[in-house]
């Protein structure tokens, strides 16, 4: 707990720097990632992330220093090379893009690991810390590194915002963008460059292995909450920022821990929560909707049943016992009891000493369900030429979903009918 307070008071300048740096990195890759995702190039981001490693190693081997600008440059070169290779393989051979991505990713990463191992065994004292590029270490973001990486991150954010309209159109409709004279090739190049840079700056915090998650996961999570592109960018940035802070925190409190996996776990948690709880599209709200439909069907079926009983007796003011209701239709007893007590609370039925009885409103609603059922049966026989003994099952479902407007249309099209196909009266 003390550590928590110590960290979030930001009293230590070091903590401030690391936090600001991590947030910037995570935010910029999240924003760029939105366009990568919408351009359907999520996997490409992963390939670039892995392909960055040999570049970092080569830059170190050639220069002998860990100067962040030189390492960035090396990362950028091989990241770019991997993309060109993917494009080359797809356009010049029969190999499909997914296969090309898999090939390039493993080959580049393999070379990277080879070089990294060679460096570690070379006895070069300056090499310590280079392995941080594998899984990331936010806490090592200090001094010159911090300034370099943050500058690139800010540049990324500014460029993305500047080209917002152009990138959005490129992702939505590339052919159209070309016909109105936009430099589509240039814009694609720009987006690719942004993606490579986002990966390159992000690896300091997360590492090459898990970088794709920083690029894509915030965007995927944000997409669940909104249908507006601008809002999606903002949400992805916030999710990225949050994960950046948590990464810095973990890196500070547990120095032995690589930050990458922590950041990725946190981002993934947010994504899973989004899949589950986002309104409308989320899994929970879909479950709730299905549940609502089920109760609606049960309640309306019970009202319909009581109405049918009333119809037979030509008196809707009679009470029926639970037993009588169950005899009429095979619904599990537990469900019937629950449905009845709910309908009573809503004021559609009353409990009398003899059992259950429709109220006036209950009778009306039951009548409407019966009417819709019979109207739909009639519609099917007339417009779809179905035999009258084939329409009941279908009407059982449709009776619950027809809106008042559709009901009106049905009445008009059928000419305000009096009898259904089974010669029952349409109430």
């Amino acid at each position: 707990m003390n550590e928590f307070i110590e960290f979030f008071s930001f009293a230590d300048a070091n903590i401030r720097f690391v936090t600001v740096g991590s947030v910037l990195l995570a935010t910029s890759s999240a924003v760029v990632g939105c366009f990568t995702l919408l351009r359907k190039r999520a996997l490409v981001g992963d390939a670039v992330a892995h392909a960055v490693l040999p570049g970092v190693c080569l830059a170190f081997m050639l220069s002998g220093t860990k100067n962040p600008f030189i390492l960035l440059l090396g990362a950028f070169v091989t990241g770019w090379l991997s993309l060109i290779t993917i494009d080359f393989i797809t356009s010049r051979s029969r190999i499909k893009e997914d296969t090309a991505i898999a090939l390039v990713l493993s080959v580049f990463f393999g070379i990277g690991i080879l070089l990294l191992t060679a460096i570690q065994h070379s006895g070069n004292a300056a090499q310590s810390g280079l392995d941080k590029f594998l899984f990331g270490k936010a806490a090592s973001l200090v001094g010159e590194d911090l300034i370099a990486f943050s500058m690139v991150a800010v540049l990324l954010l500014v460029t993305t915002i500047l080209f917002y309209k152009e990138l959005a159109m490129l992702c939505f409709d590339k052919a159209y963008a070309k016909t109105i004279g936009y430099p589509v090739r240039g814009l694609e190049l720009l987006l690719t460059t942004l993606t490579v840079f986002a990966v390159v700056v992000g690896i300091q915090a997360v590492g090459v292995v898990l970088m794709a998650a920083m690029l894509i996961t915030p965007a995927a999570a944000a997409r669940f909450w909104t249908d507006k592109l601008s809002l999606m960018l903002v949400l992805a940035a916030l999710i990225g920022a949050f994960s950046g802070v948590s990464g810095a925190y973990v890196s500070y409190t547990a120095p032995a821990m690589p930050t990458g996996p922590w950041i990725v776990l946190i981002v993934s948690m947010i994504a899973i929560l989004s899949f589950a709880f986002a309104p409308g599209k989320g899994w929970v709200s879909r479950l709730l909707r299905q549940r609502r439909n089920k109760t609606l069907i049960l309640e309306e079926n019970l009202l319909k049943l009581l109405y049918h009983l009333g119809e037979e007796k030509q008196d809707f003011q009679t009470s029926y016992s639970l037993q009588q209701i169950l005899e009429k239709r095979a619904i599990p007893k537990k469900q019937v009891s629950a449905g009845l007590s709910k309908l009573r609370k809503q004021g559609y039925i009353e409990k009398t000493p003899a059992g259950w009885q429709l109220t006036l409103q209950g009778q009306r609603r039951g009548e409407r369900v019966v009417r819709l059922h019979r109207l739909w049966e009639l519609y099917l026989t007339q417009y779809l030429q179905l035999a009258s003994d084939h329409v009941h099952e279908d009407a059982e479902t449709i009776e619950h979903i027809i809106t008042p407007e559709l009901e009106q249309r049905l009445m008009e099209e059928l000419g305000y009918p009096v009898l259904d196909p089974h010669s029952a009266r349409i109430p």
Partner: protein
Amino acid sequence: MIIQVENPVVEVHDLTVSYDRKPVLWGIDLTLPAGSLVGVIGPNGAGKSTLIKAMMDLLPAGSGYVRIFDKPIAEVRNRISYVPQRESVDWDFPASVFDVVLMGSYGKLGLFKRPRQADKDAAMEALQKVGMQGFANRQISQLSGGQQQRVFLARALAQNADIYFMDEPFAGVDIATETAIIELLRTMREQGKTVIVVHHDLQSATEYFDWVVLLNMRLVASGPAEQVLTQHLLEQTYGGKLTVLTKVGELLRKQEFPARES
């Protein structure tokens, strides 16, 4: 029957287009008159979409050239407008109907500039013309096929171009949308615009278009609708592919031959 016109809006000269070295259009040579409703008609795989895409330089020409308003396409981009096939984009993109129609102003705005109030007004007007003003804030994934087509049309209208290329605007739309679209196209023609439409329904072709291009990998006919839509020419267009032509195309692909020597 290939009728050439004086002062054409579109001139296609000896155009050959290949996919993966295999030519799908052979030596197309045609001119189109200004202010007309042009139907590009032919069977599946005839290269109808390929033709209009090549006209707009969306596909590279293996040989030949296209001139619009007697200029190379790059110089007249702001006077042309494209309505792509509905299925060519992902309608699950996070955008509203209004966002998409507003894209119609992007060409004139150029890079970096944000749409101004006047552009927004123009977008709203375009939506009104296609009867979709009530849907401006609707997410595009919630639209029906016909509504999606109208949105694409509105985007093109917002561009206020002089020549329109439309790829199958009548495909998979309801009757109401089809009628609304054809009404709109006629109004545009009256305003002196040229509209080139890829179309696959022969029944309505005579009624809709005043100039017809019949295509089946090669140009079969180009001329006024009543002269072109004859039994004889239609048989030539729909009577199956020319076997030799197809086989030679296959050979070019297999042997990795260029379509032209130089």
